[in-house]
């Protein structure tokens, strides 16, 4: 835990109101300022006690504090450096270790995820039973969406009209397995905006899950870089916020290896909305007469600073109104694997977010991260009120570009 980065914190407390765990518990140790203080204590020789580890584990890594900090404290780096120390020095209960092993053996592997998918139909009925075995298993069962048909994506989607660019598309693990329609919509939108979309088959995990949990992400990062290098693209468009943010960090992850670092630096990573705004719209937008609530995914808004672009794209659709969700800077509790390993606070945050979403009275919730989509949907279901349909920005744009508004 880098003392130089810790020193940047002047203890002003401006981060507190944006920290989800501080909102829940009102405790200093569960705020960014408090956690930085704990890191400093560790550096001074305090041991990684179960109490200390617990406060780091309770951090969602949502990075809202990074946005809020006037002193420019790089809490993202600090917590990312802290998590491996927790993994190394803190011994978890055998049960916890087992479920962690299960999650990390499953999620970063799209093929394994596809294998378990047929069972997801049983999940919701099994959830209460699984929760008694381990809360993480209960959360896992509750969160997974119903089965959807996966059709293989073509390895190349040609630009419609004049070709303006050639980009790679990351298919992701959860996105690819549970929301395949989002990838199809993304490819169509890019093609309609004049991009040749290269979709290398057999992509693995980008490493986000490991990176954000303190596990080694080198292997995943190198594989992903290699995949896109071989595909001959220098820009990769990503439609999952968590993946985009970790891919933008590749140069940091691989900093120790100059060769790989250079390769990481020459790979341009762009979030879909960010990329489309940079490219500028050419395809015709057809009207979508509806009201949407736009949800800021933390790894998009806080980690990548992408806030204006998705709103700009949505507002560019005729007849579509965008409503803001109150407390938009506060995490929904999904946060990668957080809702699996910390199900209790995650549920509370999910329900808080679901209530704010409902207050907007919108027809549709737009969320650009598969984790958030599953989390908020599950929370709406728990609250027992009508579940607002959720779509990815790409799907809304796709509907507008293809003129599907009238069908709705």
């Amino acid at each position, binding site marked *: 835990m880098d003392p130089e980065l810790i*020193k*940047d914190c*002047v*203890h*002003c*407390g*401006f981060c*507190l*109101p944006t920290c989800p765990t*501080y909102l829940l*518990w*009102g*405790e*200093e*140790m569960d705020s960014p300022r*408090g956690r930085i*203080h*704990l890191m400093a*204590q560790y550096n001074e020789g*305090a041991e990684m*006690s179960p*109490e*200390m580890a617990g*406060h780091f584990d309770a951090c969602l890594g949502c990075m809202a504090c990074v946005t809020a*900090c*006037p*002193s*420019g404290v790089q809490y993202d780096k600090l917590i990312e450096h802290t998590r491996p120390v927790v993994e190394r020095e803190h011994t978890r209960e055998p049960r916890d270790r087992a479920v962690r092993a299960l999650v990390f053996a499953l999620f970063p592997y799209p093929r394994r995820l596809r294998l378990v998918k047929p069972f997801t139909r049983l999940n919701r009925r099994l959830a209460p039973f699984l929760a008694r075995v381990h809360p993480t298993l209960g959360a896992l069962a509750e969160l997974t969406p119903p089965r959807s048909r996966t059709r293989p994506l073509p390895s190349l989607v040609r630009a419609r009209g004049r070709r303006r660019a050639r980009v790679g598309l990351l298919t992701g693990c959860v996105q690819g397995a549970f929301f395949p329609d989002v990838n199809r919509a993304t490819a169509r939108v890019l093609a309609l905006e004049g991009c040749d979309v290269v979709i290398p088959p057999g992509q693995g995990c980008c490493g986000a899950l490991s990176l954000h949990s303190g596990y080694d992400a080198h292997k995943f990062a190198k594989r992903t870089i290699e995949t896109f290098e071989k595909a001959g693209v220098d820009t990769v468009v990503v439609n999952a916020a968590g993946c985009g943010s970790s891919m933008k960090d590749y140069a940091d992850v691989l900093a120790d290896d100059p060769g790989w670092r250079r390769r990481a630096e020459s790979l341009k990573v762009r979030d879909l909305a960010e990329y489309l705004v940079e490219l500028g719209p050419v395809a015709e937008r057809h009207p979508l007469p509806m009201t949407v609530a736009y949800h800021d995914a933390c790894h998009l808004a806080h980690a990548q600073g992408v806030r204006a672009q998705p709103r700009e794209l949505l507002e560019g659709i005729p007849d579509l109104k965008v409503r803001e969700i109150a407390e938009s800077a506060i995490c929904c509790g999904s946060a990668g694997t957080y809702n699996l390993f910390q199900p209790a606070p995650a549920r509370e945050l999910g329900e808080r977010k679901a209530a704010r979403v409902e207050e907007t009275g919108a027809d549709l919730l737009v969320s650009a991260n598969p984790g958030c989509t599953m989390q908020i949907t599950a929370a709406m279901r728990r609250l027992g009120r009508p579940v607002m349909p959720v779509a990815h920005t790409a799907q809304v744009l796709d509907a507008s570009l293809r003129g599907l508004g009238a069908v709705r």
Partner: protein
Amino acid sequence: MTVIDRLDALFPPDRVITDPVRLRTYECDGLTYHRATPMVVVLPETTEEIAAVVKVCAEFGVPFVARGSGTGLSGGALPRSDGVLIVTSRMRRIISIDLDQRRAVVEPGVTNLAITEAVRDRGYYYAPDPSSQQICSIGGNVAENSGGAHCLKYGFTVNHVLALEVVTPNGEIMEISEDDFGYDLLGAFVGSEGTLGIATKITVRLMRAPEAVTTLLAAFPNIEAGGQAVSAIVGAGIVPAAIEMMDALAIEAAEAAVACGYPPEAGAVLIVELDGPAAEVESQLAEVIAICVGTGSFEQRVAASADERAKIWKGRKSAFAAVGRISPAYIVQDGVVPRTSLGEVLAGIDALQVEFGIRVANVFHAGDGNLHPLVLFDDTAPGEGHRAEIVSGRILDLCILHGGSITGEHGVGVDKARYMPRMFTDADLDTMQRVRCAFDPGGRSNPGKVFPTPRLCGEVPRVRKGSPGEIF
């Protein structure tokens, strides 16, 4: 039976903190220069729970300190290593809002901004606005009598608190209100920095949002020219909602932190906000712009939208923490001078910078002469911290010399207790002590703050020979 045993019996385990690592995260508030690890931290959720803790403290003769969000800048919430830290951050309910009576009742852990956010869409707001308003708690605002940029026109916390429910240092629950007859206990309590008890419910005044608000950013070649503009504006009989000034160094920091886009070549910027009926605001704005141009302003920008206004304010409101971008460490000072002495005091601060080789960035509520010099230093350079301390103290001497005060809004706390004798005579301090003793004879409520030398209330204040009018 110890204090901790008793607290364990009163609270669920997650609301009594005794783990040493956890306790240390509470060792300081927004002023990190002073640190002390509390014996125990409790997180009460009701008035009755606070009263119960205070009674336990009374029973064991143990001191207690109240803390809200821990953002204070004078160490007012510095814990006692032999005492209980009572943290109100879980008491954050807005109990009632009564727009007919224009008041709201809130718990002490509610943040300043949360009150405004709760009533904004109905056209109301809570006026005092410390720069930390998004996180500072209203309980802390009451303790410190906090101000903010808009206090020039609308007054401090004391002008906006209508009633309080307080837990006295012996654990009684008491209500004080501006409607009470007799002594102004509300006036005594607000700004007492935790030495008279703990506010547990606060009734605040809600203000009707003005019809029009306009914000002007005026750039000046130097701080003297900006100062002249301030005097001229106030001299013309205009009472802006706020007049804020920042010097070049503060502008540089704010730009680095939030990219507020102030004119980069400015030696000083003035932020003037006017509010009220639209016609009045319009005519005053023209007058203020003319005054600024007349005193040497080379650029004036009027915010055209709420977003632009927010952007102008963002630079100012994040200025303290933003200084972290241009200096490894700094001291936020808080002093007051008569507006007419502004120029001389600033010249004095310049001289100190040269004498000690220490940079000072200036951010201030220019309208009411409340200076916030930020004394920059490198805490790894030997001796620099000490020199910065000296400069910081000398700035307060300058304030006193010009008939000002050692604090405008951050409070005395632990940090400035030592400067109190420079400003007050022994007789003044003894009188204040008597007020404190009337509330807290055991000296258990936030001891060691405000007064330079702690003294038990039983002790007879010193008699100074030959001074007439002594009562002892």
